[in-house]
């Protein structure tokens, strides 16, 4: 369990989060949303102990954050393509046990471990391909496979759907869902786009204007809550047994710069 008590996160001249307390249970799936610059990524970094809390505590199973005691996996928002052309397997083997000293030799057992992780993300066919030649979605799969090598207890995904087309978004989300079911890790996932994610989440967290709300989707995904938070009129509709967030101009809320008019497009986004 992750216990957050009176957490305050600050950047120069701005309070991102003030006096926030909550408990996150093991294997929960939490979606983190908020306007640009609200502090979603900073909150993830705070959870990992990479961003100092101005005040408050974050405890993992009643212990302060300690990377040795809690296996945290983190999928960064932007991953620099490698400066060299390594194959997927070559890259994964080099990423094994990165926190150990010595020479990165990999045994047959290691190679089998890497292949199994690739199988888990349905990317075994990519094992001999060069990372530079993979698409954005394929690269994210490979990174997920790399994270799985450590059997993480907590997985933090920072905008994994960014720059992916709807098909890849759905594929990646299905994959994340099945991996979470199998490994039972606690999942934190940040995104700008509510609609593809809502079905997956146990609770949603909104960060904005120094405050955070964390509750079940049906309680929080409401027009007046979102409109106030984003300071723009947003409409929540029920359609096809799911909630959809639309702007008041009946645009599906997609990534910044992307707009899709009409409810029919909402179906396209999911299908």
């Amino acid at each position, binding site marked *: 369990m992750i216990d957050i008590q009176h957490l305050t996160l600050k950047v120069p001249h701005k309070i991102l989060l003030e006096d926030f307390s909550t408990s996150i249970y093991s294997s929960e799936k939490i979606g983190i949303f908020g306007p640009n610059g609200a502090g979603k990524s900073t909150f993830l970094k705070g959870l990992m102990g990479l961003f100092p809390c101005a005040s408050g505590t974050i405890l993992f199973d009643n212990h302060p954050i300690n990377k040795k005691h809690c296996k945290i996996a983190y999928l960064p928002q932007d*991953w620099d393509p490698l*400066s060299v052309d390594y194959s997927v397997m*070559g890259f994964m083997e*080099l990423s094994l046990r*990165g*926190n150990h000293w010595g020479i990165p030799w990999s045994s047959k057992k290691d190679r089998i471990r890497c292949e199994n992780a690739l199988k888990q993300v349905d990317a075994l066919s990519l094992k001999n391909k060069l990372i530079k030649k993979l698409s954005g979605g394929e690269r994210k799969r490979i990174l997920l496979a790399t994270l799985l090598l450590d059997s993480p207890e907590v997985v933090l995904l920072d905008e994994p759907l960014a720059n992916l087309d709807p098909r890849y978004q759905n594929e990646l989300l299905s994959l994340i869902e099945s991996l979470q079911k199998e490994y039972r890790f606690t999942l934190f996932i940040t995104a700008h786009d509510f609609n593809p994610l809502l079905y997956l989440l146990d609770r949603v967290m909104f960060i904005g204007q120094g405050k955070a709300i964390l509750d079940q989707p049906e309680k929080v995904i409401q027009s007046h809550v979102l409109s106030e938070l984003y300071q723009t009129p947003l409409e929540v509709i029920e359609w096809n047994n799911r909630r959809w967030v639309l702007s008041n101009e009946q645009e599906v809320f997609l990534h910044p710069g992307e707009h899709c008019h009409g409810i029919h497009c909402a179906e396209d986004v999911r299908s």
Partner: protein
Amino acid sequence: MSYIMNIFQYTFMQNALIAILIAAIIGGIMGYLILLRRLAFAAHGLGHISFTGAAFALLLHISPIWGQFLSTLSAGFLIGLMGHTLQKREVTIAMVLSLMLGLGMLCLHFYNGSTNAATNLLFGDVLGVSMHSIQWMGIAACITLIILIIILRPLIFISLLPQLAEVKDISSRFLSILFMLLVAASVTLVNQIVGALLVFVLLIGPAAISFNLTQSFWKGIAVSVILAVLLSFSALISAFYADLPVSVCLTGWVVLFYGLSLIIKREE
């Protein structure tokens, strides 16, 4: 073959061969890692800084290699400490490097010894390497390799997945500083062969060719080292027979092979 080997009956050629082999092995390995960590510019800068250190040592009438070690290790420590912030300050770095070269020239201006000193520091003088320098090169090379073997796994990890390093409890800053100290030692070693201005040729050249030709880490390191050794050896032989400076011949060989590697890469 005996025609080639005959030239190694001279002591200065034997010394040159040993020095060039040490520098090539270290240059080949470290160059590959420097490119992997995208630090080619820093390595080039350390070459300039080592010139100043050497010139200052000459002024104090001590062996230039000490001045080079001291100046590059101090600068390497600072570069490692500054980390990523340095990559955004290209103009500042260029100004600092120019200043260092200027200071080096100033030291040489006040130096009353051999007039060849400046040329040797800038372009190298492998044929004049003493056994004393070779001994220190050997010791520095062994220390560099031992430390590298210890830190290689986390070093590669922070190069491939820098954002994940801290999550895995790897201290990027500590490794960056340590790696830059190793780069500093390598620059000083390579400096003995090609001089301050051509450090790039032996330290980065073979590694850059290897980057164009290979697609796996171990093959990349192996090709880089083999190329560094072969090209340095060829440069030594060709310089002897053509009566040209070794660094000039080495530059020619490296640039030629780099061009060929680009053609091969394009055809692939």
